């Protein structure tokens, strides 16, 4: 026990007695994430604001008097240009193509007369709009004008024709039904967080252990400092466990820092990316959820630490260890992504797939969808796998081919 404790303490001291290490392990990654997310969020919000504030430049061909009248009363204002000739039309199309104008509205000639004189069986007059989907301004103008403004204009003409619109509306859908959403808010926000959190936590736990883990084992072998531990009177297994536990503690702590910063900064970062989603997250965990998450986190940290220890022990240098670890990191990334975009109930069998089941269980706990059986299988399998890998690492430590230079 003394051996495990001493090795554990030394490995933590290696990080915590060195300001540069504290900065690079705990603060720098968080700082980078917050800065990147904020920049991305701000840029996205600036872009949206810009599009919203932009006054659409609209070309109108054959504008009828009724539309001019409608425009005068409407609240949305556009910068209007009129097409008088074939040349004007060509210029308008060119402007749309080059992003200098946003939309062309083409009315048929004598549109007002056609509408007024309409009789059953006549061809229904058609308004055509032209836009450029590659241009953000044009896209937004198309959505607003073709979708909303022209619909309002139609309603106005319809009211003029029919006198009373209520006769033809027949029914409305949810025009005054504030309670139309029936859902468990906790579950819903759990689902939203459940989508992101497992992804981040599994990655963070791995990433947190990666650099330090390879240095802790392969690095020590490379520098010749491992041998000094090997001639001390403690068991090889104590060295391994001391290192694995300290790796767990460091990666756990670094991901905890991440998660706290993420929860605190989430509203700030998410504000503009998906309006409302960040600040509306109402994540309230029950005691049992916290206990389940905690136990699972410890198990995952254990498994990841042993995976990294295993890959490092067979490497002769930190560099070599990192080349072994990188593909596994990619795998963890991909599995995280799969869980993030998986919908529907998870199959029981999926809970037997290592690493993948961790992300599933995480999601399940947060959205309260996991069964006791699924949870227990995940937890036991993760711990057992970690245990087996630890045993292999201990065996490797006892093998002179692996350990002796």
């Amino acid at each position, binding site marked *: 026990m003394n051996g495990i404790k001493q090795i554990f303490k030394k490995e933590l001291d290696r990080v915590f007695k060195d300001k540069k290490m504290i900065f690079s392990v705990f603060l720098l990654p968080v700082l980078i994430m917050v800065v990147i997310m904020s920049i991305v969020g701000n840029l996205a919000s600036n872009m949206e604001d810009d599009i919203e504030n932009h006054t659409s430049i609209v070309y109108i061909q054959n504008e009828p008097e009724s539309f001019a009248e409608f425009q005068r009363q409407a609240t949305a204002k556009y910068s209007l240009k009129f097409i008088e000739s074939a040349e004007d039309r060509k210029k308008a199309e060119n402007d749309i193509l080059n992003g200098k104008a946003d939309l062309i509205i083409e009315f048929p000639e004598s549109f007002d007369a056609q509408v007024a004189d309409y009789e059953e069986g006549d061809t229904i007059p058609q308004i055509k709009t032209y836009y450029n989907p590659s241009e953000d301004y044009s896209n937004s103008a198309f959505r607003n004008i073709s979708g909303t403004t022209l619909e309002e204009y139609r309603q106005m003409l319809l009211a003029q024709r029919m006198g009373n619109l209520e006769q033809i509306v027949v029914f409305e859908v949810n025009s005054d039904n504030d309670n139309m959403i029936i859902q468990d808010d906790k579950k819903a926000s759990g689902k939203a967080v459940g989508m992101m959190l497992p992804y981040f936590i599994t990655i963070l736990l791995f990433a947190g252990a990666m650099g330090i883990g390879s240095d802790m084992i392969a690095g020590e072998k490379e520098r*010749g*400092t491992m041998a*000094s531990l090997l001639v001390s*009177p*403690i068991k090889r297994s104590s060295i391994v466990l001391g290192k694995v536990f300290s790796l767990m503690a460091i990666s756990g702590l670094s991901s905890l820092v991440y998660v706290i910063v993420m929860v605190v900064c989430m509203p700030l970062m998410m504000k503009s990316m998906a309006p409302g989603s960040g600040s509306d997250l109402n994540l309230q965990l029950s005691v049992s959820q916290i206990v389940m998450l905690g136990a699972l986190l410890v198990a995952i940290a254990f498994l990841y630490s042993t995976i990294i220890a295993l890959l490092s022990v067979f490497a002769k240098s930190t560099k070599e260890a990192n080349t072994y670890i990188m593909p596994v990191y990619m795998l963890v990334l991909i599995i995280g992504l799969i869980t993030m975009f998986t919908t529907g109930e998870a199959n029981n069998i999926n809970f037997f797939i290592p690493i993948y089941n961790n992300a599933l269980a995480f999601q399940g706990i947060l959205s309260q969808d996991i069964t006791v059986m699924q949870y227990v299988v995940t937890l036991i399998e993760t711990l057992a796998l970690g245990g087996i890998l630890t045993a292999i690492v201990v065996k490797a430590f006892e093998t002179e081919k692996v350990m002796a230079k």
Partner: protein
Amino acid sequence: MIEIKNLSKIFKLNKKQMAELKTKDPVKTAVDDLSLTAKKGEIYGLLGPNGAGKTTTLRCIATIIKPTKGEIYVNGHEVQKEPEAVRTSIGFLTSDIKLDEQFDVDYMFQFFGRLHNVPKDVLNRRKEELFTYFGIKEFAHKQIKELSTGMKQKAAIAVSLAHNPDIVIFDEPTNGLDIITARSVTDYLKKLKDEGKLIIVSTHIMSEAEKLCDRIGIIVDGRKIAEGTLGELLHETGAEDLEDAFFELYRNRKEEA
């Protein structure tokens, strides 16, 4: 006491190592049927050229590598059966064992002392004694990476002796040291001997072996070709000094081979 009985150590070579050694033999016998006994209160020197098997022998004693054949008893404990007990009673120093460069000497001393379960007050007394003797105090709180080669070697010696081991195994302890530091190391080893400890050193420096060792075992190609006090070796070979005696024995061995 250290008792080595018919120790052989055979390494398997990979293709790269075979190419480096310019051999087609996939195995290399580093130590070949070596037996020796070293007793309490003596300094036993393993003398031999580079690659003779000195370090391999010492590494087998220190349980870093396992013998292919034979047995080694350290204070009655067999190295393969009770490696922890063996490691408790030895202090081992070799050039490829290094101290963690990130920590200072003081931290490393305390750390290894605690690994050996040395009580705090005893450890502090040991530190005072060793740090004073080797003049470590002035750089005790410097990170090891900031130290010169000599300072590092002094620190490594002090750390390896933190637990006051009964048996001290030093592999070329004065390698890379200036003459003054080297002298302080050999003087300290004599002091340890006077305290009744067993010291095994390996060296290829003849003058050092002459002055320091009570008994000398000469190793060539993994085999012990001669053993005895300086006087016995000189008498056996009819040489005037150890260097001449060594070459005499070395030549005989090569002619036999």
